[in-house]
């Protein structure tokens, strides 16, 4: 076959960097390469707003950065997950989704490859759909393309692809809702070639993405009234005679390209530290623009201070249109989607939460580009932890919810999510292999955040934050694995934390310490026989003393399998406090005291340094139960019940 564009070069990672430099010279907007620039795309596409289709042509320039020749190529066709009810994605969603889609006959979407050419030769017929993750032969989200001539190590290949994408009705990330459209996962996208094979997974319900860095040079022709936000920076725009306009975007050192269009978008520009913030907000949400922008500015500054500078010139924030909530809360390189509603109270920090979280993904996904299919905890989990720290720092107590006396901060929220499905799956598991979405979410996002929060408090002195910074600096614009993260943390903190990581990362074990006994009994004088002078004396009298003495007992138990050193605080009825420390290794530990005071209560982990603990209630125990707290809650519930009965009897 005439695959004449395959150019053999000696293998070296530097080659790819040099290629990047060459591309940089070709496009003035691109600075010196920050990444290996392995997969580079030049895409020209036209959007039909009426039919919700994108017709495009892409030229992929792919470099083989490995030591192995690549005998074939492997591509994602993500939107085929929405093509019909037979895709793995829809099957994993279940019948409800299918019913919904069947009610919406125009709701399906797909990407259809019209032609593939290499060196001018059409090889479309070689496409072979693959299903590397499951036995679903009907899934069409991955295809292989055998080559006549393998791409040698260090070699480069140009591939031309013509495609048409039908956007689905938006329910998960991509699609349209009225005139609003979010266009992600919209073009044939090459997988990642590593260790002699393609890492190119199907699109599952719980999976996100994995791709190589590169340069995206994208030209979009869209209706003239459409306001567009996209990955990268707008280079040029011109109006056409047919009521359309053509926009030229370039993004370098990124691994995906997404864009959004809506004629209703209001554009608000801001900047922080030289980074332009481009907010596309719905008209009904303009009065909340400051909420997005304040959160974005604060998050960029925190991320910069804690980990390193945001290196891109622009960040675009998209506020989806009505009915587009499926596109909310998603991250793409230099572009994030957020969301709110016109009635959103200031104390309900939903817009801020999404802004901080998705912006954090610019670091943990965007730059530190781990494999989200296989180790999602590395991006979602680390980012959830960082999000919590930033939210708590910016907004203080009640950082997520501060409304009518209800206050929820990061730990409370993550605990609630984690505890809903704490014991089904370990953190290290391929995303589609979790028990269900709930378990995936609980473990990948929340457990990881709590694991890191607990570690943070264990290490103290911002050691974990410094470790994350070291990890970021070492692995940005690369594809780290979990072991790389652990190594970076160990190295940064100067100790082997394997004892901790081995307990919490590859297992579903839980951490649960409890105070199970708090007793005090009066000590009376001795009775019975006494050993004295070589014989037994009967009736040993009690020592005379006007002071009562008590023997207090506190038992702390380890109910979970995870072991951590813990602090125990014991408070006596005279106000004295005893602070104890236990290595937490055995199943239980008894603390005993004898003196004129009685133990009043005891608490394990009094400073809440172990958010991973699955039960805070059993962390403390009183010798005698309190009542006033119970009375407050029970009487309030009784009052509500009275009102309910009043209402129902008065119907």
């Amino acid at each position, binding site marked *: 076959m005439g695959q004449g564009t395959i150019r053999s070069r000696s293998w070296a990672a530097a080659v790819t960097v040099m290629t990047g430099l060459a591309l940089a010279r070709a496009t003035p907007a691109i600075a010196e390469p920050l990444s290996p620039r392995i997969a580079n795309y030049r895409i020209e596409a036209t959007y039909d707003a009426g039919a919700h289709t994108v017709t495009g042509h892409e030229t992929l320039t792919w470099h083989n950065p490995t030591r192995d020749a690549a005998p074939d190529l492997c591509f994602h066709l993500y939107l085929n997950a929405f093509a019909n009810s037979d895709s793995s994605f829809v099957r994993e969603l279940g019948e409800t989704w299918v019913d919904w889609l069947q009610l919406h006959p125009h709701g399906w979407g797909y990407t259809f490859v019209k032609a593939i050419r290499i060196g001018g030769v059409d090889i479309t017929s070689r496409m072979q759909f693959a299903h590397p993750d499951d036995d679903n032969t009907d899934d069409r989200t991955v295809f292989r393309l055998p080559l006549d001539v393998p791409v040698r190590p260090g070699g480069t290949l140009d591939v031309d692809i013509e495609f048409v994408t039908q956007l689905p009705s938006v329910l998960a990330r991509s699609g349209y809702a009225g005139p609003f459209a979010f266009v992600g996962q919209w073009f044939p996208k090459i997988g990642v070639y590593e260790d002699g094979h393609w890492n190119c997974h199907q699109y599952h319900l719980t999976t996100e993405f994995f791709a190589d860095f590169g340069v995206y040079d994208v030209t979009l022709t869209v209706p003239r009234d459409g306001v567009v936000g996209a990955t990268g920076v707008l280079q040029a725009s011109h109006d056409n005679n047919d009521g359309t306009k053509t926009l030229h975007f370039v993004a370098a050192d990124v691994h995906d390209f997404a864009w959004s269009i809506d004629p209703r978008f209001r554009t608000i520009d801001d900047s922080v530290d030289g980074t332009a913030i481009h907010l596309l907000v719905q008209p009904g949400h303009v009065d909340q623009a400051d909420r997005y922008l304040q959160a974005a500015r604060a998050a960029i500054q925190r991320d910069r201070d804690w980990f390193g500078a945001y290196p891109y010139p622009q960040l675009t924030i998209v506020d989806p249109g009505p009915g587009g909530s499926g596109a909310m809360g998603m991250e793409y390189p230099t572009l994030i989607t957020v969301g709110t509603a016109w009635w959103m109270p200031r104390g309900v920090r939903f817009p801020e939460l999404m802004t901080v979280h998705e912006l954090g993904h610019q670091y943990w996904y965007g730059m530190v580009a781990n494999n989200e299919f296989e180790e999602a905890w590395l991006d979602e989990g680390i980012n959830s932890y960082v999000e919590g720290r930033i939210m708590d720092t910016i907004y203080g107590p009640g950082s997520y919810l501060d409304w009518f006396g209800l206050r929820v901060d990061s730990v409370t929220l993550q605990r609630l999510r984690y505890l809903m499905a704490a014991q089904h799956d370990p953190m290290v598991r391929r995303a589609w292999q979790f028990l269900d979405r709930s378990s995936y979410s609980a473990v990948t996002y929340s457990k990881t955040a709590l694991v890191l929060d607990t570690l943070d408090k264990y290490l103290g002195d911002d050691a974990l934050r410094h470790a994350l910074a070291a990890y970021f600096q070492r692995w940005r614009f690369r594809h780290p694995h979990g072991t790389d993260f652990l190594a970076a943390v160990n190295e940064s903190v100067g100790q082997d934390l394997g004892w901790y990581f081995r307990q919490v990362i590859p297992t579903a074990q839980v951490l649960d310490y409890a105070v199970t006994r708090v007793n005090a009994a009066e000590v009376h004088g001795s009775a019975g026989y006494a050993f004295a002078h070589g014989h037994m004396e009967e009736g040993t009298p009690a020592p005379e003393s006007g002071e009562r003495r008590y023997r207090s007992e506190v038992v702390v138990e380890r109910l979970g399998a995870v072991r951590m050193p813990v602090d125990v605080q014991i408070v006596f009825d005279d106000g004295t406090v005893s602070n104890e420390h236990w290595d937490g290794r055995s199943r239980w530990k008894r603390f005993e005291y004898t003196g004129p005071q009685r133990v009043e209560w005891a608490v394990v982990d009094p400073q809440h340094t172990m958010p991973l603990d699955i039960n805070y209630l059993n962390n403390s125990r009183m010798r005698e139960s309190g009542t006033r707290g119970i009375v407050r809650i029970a009487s309030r519930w009784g009052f509500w019940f009275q*009102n309910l009965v009043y209402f129902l009897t008065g119907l």
Partner: protein
Amino acid sequence: MGRSYASGFAVALRRWPAVLVLFLANLLAGLTFTAASWLWLNAALDRSLATRTLLTDLDMNVFVDLFVHHGESFRTLCHGAAGAGALFILLGVWLNAVAIVAICGDAGLRNWLHRGLDLYPTYLGLWLATAAFNAIGLGALFVAARALTHWTAQSTSEMTVYGIGGIGAALAATLLIFSATVHDHARIHSAATGAGTARAYAWAFGFAGRREKRAVPLTLLLVATGSVVWVAYQTVGMVIPTGSGPGLTVSLLWGQALLLWRMLLRVWAFAVAADLQNVDKTA
């Protein structure tokens, strides 16, 4: 309308024993569920510090742990509440009959209780008819709102869905107010004439819906009166410090004052309905 409103209030005040009976029954419901909640919380919190700290600190982590680790027993508590609620509804049907008998002129608490028991089958039928009417009406509104939301899913305005929800809520409130008006008039009519369930309900439907134009507006006026008092209750309630024993006690008593007022309002509503029907209430 103003005369009925004012005279109804005066009649309700004169029939204070009926108000008291309603209040005490409602208080019994509250005490029952408070006791059940106390037992559950005492077991679930198990001598933890939260048994003390919840007085001053509504730590959401406590509720997270209660929900997660004691969810099963909490569901049992909820099922118990549903059962108790059903029993108190059955009791309430009788006690409302007692209040209406008091309004309609019979003398003496003993006589009210006795006559109320006689009316019980009819009143239970009226309550069930009202509940069915409400369920069907609200269900139809819900289905209609869902269908409208579905058909307008591609609307270009975010306000479309809120508009549907708002109109739906307003219609639901109107339906409930009309239904409550019909229910009150059916009970009064039955007590005054001895009409059975079907006849009383049909008569009241026509009375409130067509013949007596003041019926629904008066119910609305009473609802508005109740709302004003509720706002006053909340306003005062917010300044009561519940983080101490005395403050908590005052807060609880203040809540019971609201419920006593609500029972008065109920008897007031019966009296207004009786006035509109010209039922003899001179005794």
